[in-house]
């Protein structure tokens, strides 16, 4: 049983949450090319390892969260709000 730390509600069982989608993508511009839109909707990295994804605390506060989960071990190493970034990613990007 995975446990996810909701920033609003604390540590809860994963059955309260619903997986949403890959969090490594952002909505293209409305005028973006069909190819860009196609990549946004369909292309995924399918990472084996640490992965950012959106989950919703559906049976809790209903917040959408960003979750850093290892797709191999299922370890969840970080959770935050949708527009936050996990600490090590911040370091990598600066």
């Amino acid at each position, binding site marked *: 049983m*995975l446990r996810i730390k909701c920033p609003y509600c604390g540590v809860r069982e994963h059955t309260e949450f619903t997986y949403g989608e890959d969090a490594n993508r952002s909505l293209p511009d409305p005028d973006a090319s*069909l190819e860009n839109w196609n990549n946004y*909707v369909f292309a995924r990295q399918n990472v084996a390892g640490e992965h950012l994804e*959106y989950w919703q605390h559906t049976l809790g506060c*209903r917040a*959408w969260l960003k979750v850093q989960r290892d797709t191999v*071990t299922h370890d969840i190493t970080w959770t935050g709000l949708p527009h936050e970034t996990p600490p090590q990613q911040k370091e990598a990007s600066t």
Partner: protein
Amino acid sequence: MSGFRSHLGRLNDEQISFSFNGQSLSARAGDTVASALLANGIEVVGRSFKYHRPRGVNSCGAEESGALVSVGIGAEQEPNVRATMQLVTEGLQVSSQNCWPSPQFDLLAINNFVGSLFPSSPLAAGFYYKTFMWPAKFWYKLYEPAIRRAAGMGKVPDQADKAAYDRINSFYDIAIIGGGAAGLSAALSAAQSGLRIVLMDEHATLGGQLLHLPKQQQDLEQWRQNTIASLQVADNVTILTNTVCWGRFDGNTLAAHEVIDGKVRHNFHKIHAEKIIIATGAIERPLVFTNNDKPGVMLASGARKLLNNYGVAAGRQMVLFTNNDSAYKTAFDYHDQGLPVAAIIDSRESRSEHLFEACQQRGIPVHQYSVVTKAKGWHGVRSVQVSELKDDGTLGASHDITCDLVAHSGGWSPQVQMASHGGTPPIYDEQITAFVVDQQAADTWSVGAAQGQFGLQAGIKQAMVAAQAACQALACQGGEVLIPAEDINGELNIEPLWSVPAPSKQKNKQFVDIQHDVTVADIGLAHKEGFISVEHMKRYTTLGMANDQGRTANVNALAMMAGHLEQSITATGTTRFRPPIAPVSLGSIAGREVGEHVRPLRRTPMQEWHERQGAVFVEAGLFRRPQYYPIGNETLDQAYVREAAHVRTKVGLCDVSSLGKIEIVGPDSAVFLDRIYVNLFSSLPVNKARYGIMLREDGHIYDDGTTSRLADDRFFMTTTTAKAGAVLSHLERCLEIDWPELQVRVSSVSEHWAAMALAGPQSRATLQLAFPEMDFSQAALPFMGLAHGKYQGSPLRILRVSFSGELAYEVYVQADHGEQVWQHIMAMGQPHDIIPYGLEALGTLRIEKGHVTGAELDGRVTLADVNMQRMASKKKWFVGQNLMQREGLQDPKRPCLVGLKAVDPQQAIPTGAILVNENKLVAGCDKQGWVSSMTYSPALEGFIALGFLTSGQKRIGETIYAAYPLQGQHIPVEVVSSHFYDPDNIQVKDQ
């Protein structure tokens, strides 16, 4: 008669009684069914799975593969219970399995002889697969009935289980699996930290292999009792006995199955632990020789525990057969209790001097470098055939030794399942000839025999160190454990013997997996047929798939497989262990969620009225919605046609409370809805409603519904019943992830509002009577208008929308006034002959009108597919707009929505039928589309349907065919507009 009660062991002298195959027997409190049967001299307990060979008790623990019994009768009956794990309770009813008329005389034992006549018997490895390949008629008529009668384990009770089961979620700092010396030590050390500890053991009594020792071994018995006593008084320690931990899952979650004798039968514990200590011990492996499945052939450790713990001698004269040191203790304990040991047959080349001397002192003959080649006897063992081994691996001269008990040991296999569930692969250890998992990881430790550490003091120390490390990782301090002065040497000095050399015709009597009747011959056959991976060999032979989950069979089988492949055991590898490692009752997993509690029932505020009215209900998600309201003996077909026709001529009321309802509030609400829906909502005036369609990002239709504007910054959205939850999540996702800058809040108000559709020419007159202070005239409340009112102080929203194609309204009222308002409208509609109508009539009306629902909007259709491309606004961007323009979604040949009319109006058009051009279904005929919904239309006096047809809009007027080959139907249908009824909306709008 073989076994008997020699003394009391650790039991007290309280007598209880139980029955076996109807015969009343006595037992001592604390006996298992296995110890009690042996104490009563019962040798044959049941018959085997495929060959119906006699089987008896062959161990004393979870690894039991011989004595599988059914417990209880009727609804309470539980098949395939391991007699070694089932405690005897007063009045317990135990019966044999797989035999008729009795375990002593079983008519189906013929399978056994058939098996020996043909080298590849019909029930040999892979018989499941092979027999399926025979011609079908052979299978149904001959093989399946024969195999069903012959093979199988026990019987499933034919009545519903009345017992209660519970599911328990719990949280601990440290979970310790296994209550032997190592587990007890880990628990005692960890307990001193003050952390929350749980200790689980599958047996009724804690102690593990300490219970194999004679009670007279005072120092160790005292240590066991003192340790348990200390744990029992510690407030922070939970002890779960009769509890097998059957799986380890992500996030340090353990699943455990507790057997209790009370109102609740089993508990399913879902345990979350910060740290896990695996102290699951080791299981003795059998030696593989001819007839090693006969009653009387028993693991040495089993025979020892039976004697020392339960006081039951498993036989009157023992022969011990071993390839290691550990089993000698069994012979010594039997001898020292005055029970004769005829001989020790030791397959090893070299001997352990101290053991040899101990045998000489006791006068027990030892046959070095010899093997038991065969157990002899009709049902149980009466003698063994013993041969010397020669250096070339062949057998020397043989002789027989009389005995009724063969205690055997092929070494020990650490119980690595729990460690393996975590993903760590077991590694073969040459020293102990078994697989181990070396795990001293961040949050899991394997200790004691489970980790291959068979020495007592060393195992206790290892467990204590692990417990202290676990405590330390949780910023606490574990304590010290008193190490007993007496040690048990863990050296096995094992020399592997995977199977005793035997002539090939005897190899199908050398059993590897006893419960599943898998023999040395089967493994050879699997190899010969090309199954070179252990995972394939396991599935082909079904080895290791029985109750004991390969505890006794796996290592021997892998080693044999390695032998066939001429490679090392390490290179051959082992199968991956998967939960559950022990039988788990389905009841315990279901817990209390059975019957009507399987899932919650959502009730609308008017549910009780529908029930009182005698409505027939249909499941719609978690709702049970009225399907129709029969009058007298009306059938469904009669009722829905009557209801639909009545609505078209008079007036009817339908409960639509299950619709999703979402309130959208904030200054940017209109901008938000413009992005969500394909059509424009920012232009919608206050107190007006608009039908809207939303797409997915990929350009397909997601959901539809009516949304009305309550104020400049406030909208009231309805969704379909099925998508209510998903649409809310979608809106929340867009607001939080894509457009956090929009000032909008969305809230579900589905439960706040009761909703009812009032439809029919008399609907306005009815409303006017019901709410006289409101004005329902065409001028005051035109089509798509919203009016506000009050009923007994509670707000009312009345929306002039129509799903039926008649003059119609949707009435929304606060849920707690739902039934009142419903009854009020029904009462006020009386003069207009109002009726309630159900989901079926609602469907008829909307099909006549050509409205789409989930049957059409199935996630694969676009706006153009349902002829609504004109709804897409060109003045703004919306979700799905970009990919809607993909080439594939623009293809003019895509099937699109059409109406279908049966050429013979009285011929039904089955939903799901395929649309074809040909007047009969022929090979290669092209699928032109499909039928999505159909009904009998009282308005058109015939069967009509909605469907999707390639280039459908251009084909109006054609006659095609709806093919339904499952029922041999091929129905001519005319392609028409999907707007069967009032295509110009005169009824709806202009009144």
